[in-house]
């Protein structure tokens, strides 16, 4: 921890993340996916990443299309209204670890608190443990009841996109916080990308990332596209529909071209009028 400001470039921020790292991705399937940073990881050819996210979507698709992924741990991966996530739906199931919100929340809480597990009643009488042979039971020393020991979810880098951040790395939103704060606290480091870099330390809204967790801050306008970023812009459903059709009909490599810089993703791929919300 130094006292210099943490603002850097997408390229430098992405290069903090080595091959084989475990990355946590914030937001949900509709919003605040750190897509600019993910495009940069693909561009840099990162491989063998383990991805932890709550509700995955186009973030997972792009990382899979780019050949960056060893394992996906998510509670759900879909393109929402557009339907199944085509690349994810076709990968080897052995690459996918089934999570639910409870397994992720307890797992990240355990990690943040330095524990190897937390007990939970969640998913106890479901078939989900059949998909998770790694789960163990633990017996309460008080009641004798057996409950599931949710294993700690370790994350090297949390990747969080927000509407605003400060140069020292405080980041927040006035929209849905999802699980981002917990993810940032559970991760060893957090990389923040934000639509707007604000002056340091003004009193602000809901804090998702405390500055002490943050290693790098990158200004990334439309950095969540094609997901939305409240209040700046909404999810780009037409782009996602194009993506789904392209990935299904012409495969991952063709779909990747939709995310290419030619010369600039922001200028050539984003129809701003389509995603602005007029109230």
């Amino acid at each position, binding site marked *: 921890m130094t006292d210099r400001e943490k603002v850097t470039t997408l390229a430098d921020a992405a290069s903090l993340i080595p091959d084989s790292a475990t990355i946590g991705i914030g937001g949900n399937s*509709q919003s605040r996916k750190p897509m600019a940073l993910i495009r940069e990881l693909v561009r840099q050819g990162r491989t063998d990443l383990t991805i932890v996210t709550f509700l995955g979507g186009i973030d997972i698709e792009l990382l899979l299309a780019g050949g960056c992924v060893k394992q996906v741990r998510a*509670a*759900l991966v*879909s393109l929402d*209204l557009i339907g199944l*996530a085509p690349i994810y739906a076709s990968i080897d199931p052995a690459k996918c670890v*089934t999570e639910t919100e409870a397994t992720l929340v307890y797992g990240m809480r355990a990690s943040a608190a330095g524990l190897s597990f937390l007990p939970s009643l969640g998913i106890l009488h479901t078939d989900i443990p059949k998909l998770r042979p790694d789960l163990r039971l633990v017996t309460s020393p008080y009641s004798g009841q057996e409950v599931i020991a949710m294993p700690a979810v370790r994350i090297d880098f949390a990747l969080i996109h927000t509407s605003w951040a400060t140069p020292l790395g405080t980041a927040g939103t*006035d929209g849905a916080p999802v699980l981002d704060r917990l993810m940032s606290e559970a991760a060893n480091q957090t990389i923040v990308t934000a639509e707007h870099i604000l002056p340091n330390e003004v009193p602000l809204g809901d804090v998702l990332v405390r500055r002490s967790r943050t290693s790098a801050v990158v200004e990334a306008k439309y950095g969540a596209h094609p997901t*939305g970023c409240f209040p700046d812009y909404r999810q780009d459903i037409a782009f996602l529909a194009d993506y789904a059709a392209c990935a299904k009909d012409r495969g991952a490599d063709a779909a990747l071209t939709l995310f290419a810089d030619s010369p600039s993703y922001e200028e050539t791929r984003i129809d701003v009028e389509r995603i602005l919300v007029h109230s």
Partner: protein
Amino acid sequence: MSHTAVASSAEVIATCISREIHDIDVVGLGLGTFIPAAGAMLAQKTHAPKVDFFMSSAGAYVHDLPMLTLTLSEWAAQGRVIDRPKLSEVFSQEVHATHVEFFRPAQLDAFGRFNTSLIGRLDAPNLRLPGAAGIPDVTATLSRLFYYLPRHDNRTLVENVDFVTGGPTDIGGRPPTSLHAGSRAFRLITDLGVFGFGDSGRMEVVSLHGDVTRDEVMQRTG
């Protein structure tokens, strides 16, 4: 207005949903829950003016919903947030976030167990579904758990689900899933009627819409 309106099945279901909502309920609205949102708004405008909503995709409790939306929840909640719990509280089951929620399962069985995970055999599924999200966790803490199906059919409604993603399991001698007293499958609402899970825990007819017959229900139930 002089045209004659015939209610669509979505409208019928939304109307039935509204009838199940009590005045002080907090209604959970997940991603893409258009019909339950319509039903809950109808309830609020008729017999349940004090209903609040928990909009999971906005991460917020609100009292007013300005519009039906699938993708603009955060904008809909803007300026209306009563309370913003941490989702980590909700999903760790420490906060009993909502009283009622309405889910659309991929499969539902005679005992109210649902499947949103995979179709076919566990070791060689025909279809992997997108995932369970938080549904197994949330359903365990509801006061009254509802399902809805826009189309009642015998591929969705089966004797036993292929995979138990969640739901009550106080059947066949197994202990109940419910973490908190009172959590259980309550009703299923389809385009044919309203179904309950009486004392036996087995699905039974509560009421059928209009001229729907029991034979039709039997044919379209697996």
